[in-house]
């Protein structure tokens, strides 16, 4: 056995091929407890989780949630996320406006964090999931492995978009609604939070095994791996 920390490949039964996937081996493995059972089982015999050979209506659900998040993205960016009142002046700031203000105040790292988390990540997520759905649907595959990695990143990174929502919520809680100064949340706060949740749900409802399912269109080129 190799040294500590070395990655070890799970031992293969058969060579990598389209034929050696679980559906043709007639087994299904529980995503919760790793119990393998017959592919006709509807519930895991060990932990009772509902088993899917493939999640039902995965693409439809993903697309529906993606459309919802795109719709929510519009008010999230048009309307102000918070209102700051100090000594009578009310300033409304949008998400992008907040980033610009932070940049002008020379808080570069924080401005960058907010920009990445609330502007770049949501757009990237929506684009990535749309591409995955399109790629699976039209069987237009550039690299299955890249698609899988893209999906994994999308799934992992989604939660971090909540940073700005939490920051605004904390600000509102922190600053007393006094006469001199107050901070109020704006409509965009709800829209943006809902958008993050719907993109997260869209990622969860996407069936990653579909990435690997379709047989190869372009023969000769091994796009299976």
């Amino acid at each position: 056995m190799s040294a500590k920390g070395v990655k070890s490949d799970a031992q293969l039964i058969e060579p990598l091929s389209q034929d050696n996937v679980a559906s043709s081996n007639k087994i299904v493995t529980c995503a919760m407890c790793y119990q393998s059972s017959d592919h006709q089982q509807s519930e895991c015999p060990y932990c009772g989780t509902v088993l899917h050979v493939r999640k039902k209506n995965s693409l439809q659900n993903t697309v529906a949630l993606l459309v919802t998040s795109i719709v929510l993205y519009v008010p999230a960016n048009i309307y102000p996320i918070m209102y700051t009142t100090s000594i009578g002046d009310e300033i409304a700031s949008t998400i992008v406006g907040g980033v610009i203000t932070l940049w002008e105040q020379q808080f570069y790292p924080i401005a960058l964090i907010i920009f990445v988390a609330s502007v770049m990540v949501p757009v990237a997520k929506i684009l990535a999931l749309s591409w995955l759905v399109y790629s699976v649907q039209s069987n237009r595959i550039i690299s299955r492995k890249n698609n899988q990695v893209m999906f994994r990143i999308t799934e992992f990174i989604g939660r971090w978009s909540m940073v700005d929502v939490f920051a605004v919520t904390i600000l509102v809680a922190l600053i007393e609604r006094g006469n001199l100064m107050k901070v109020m949340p704006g409509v965009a706060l709800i829209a943006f939070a809902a958008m993050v949740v719907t993109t997260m749900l869209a990622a969860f409802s996407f069936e990653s095994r579909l990435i690997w399912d379709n047989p190869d269109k372009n023969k000769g080129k091994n796009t299976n791996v």
Partner: protein
Amino acid sequence: MSSPTKLACHECDQVVIIPALSDGQKAICPRCGFVFTRYFKKARSRLLAFSSSSLVFLLLSFVFPFLIFTTQGNEKVISLVQGLQSMGSGTYLSVVLFMLATTVLVPVMTLTGINYTLISAKLDKPLPFTRHILKLVFLLQPWNMAEIFLLGILVSMIKIASLGDVQFGWSFYSFVLYIISMAATRVFLDKYQVWQWFRHHDKRAYSYER
């Protein structure tokens, strides 16, 4: 372990057999790179150490002042739960409830669940509802946003740095320690391994071997 069991990769459906792993080794799907499991020696004791300390740090961070904000001589002391409450009126209740759930409720439930299952695994016969609780722990995991909350605090601190003076209370430091020990807990909380502990109790259900 007994005779090898065929597993289908969760992400690409490749059928594999997980080999015996040495300390720190990962079992990775050869086709898509999915990490099935990472084996650690004494993972159970390490997990118990980190999950119980996370729980203690998290509970402590509810008790003391979290942040102290001073403007024009007015001092405002905020504790974690109270801070979330003060925003809890009106239209924005949904956002506050979401934040409360993902930063307080989910972590408390997850950690209590982990500690419960660990105690259960030590006993000859698992405690009631162990499997249900374990399932809940894993289902809730992506909704634990405590570390994002911490980053949110730092961002809001900087946004109001010009308006007043902000000091961190004891709870804040406890919360930081909680985030650190929770990260360690996540390393040792391995789905595959954890379920394996209970397989020994219940050989009957673990019969599908080909």
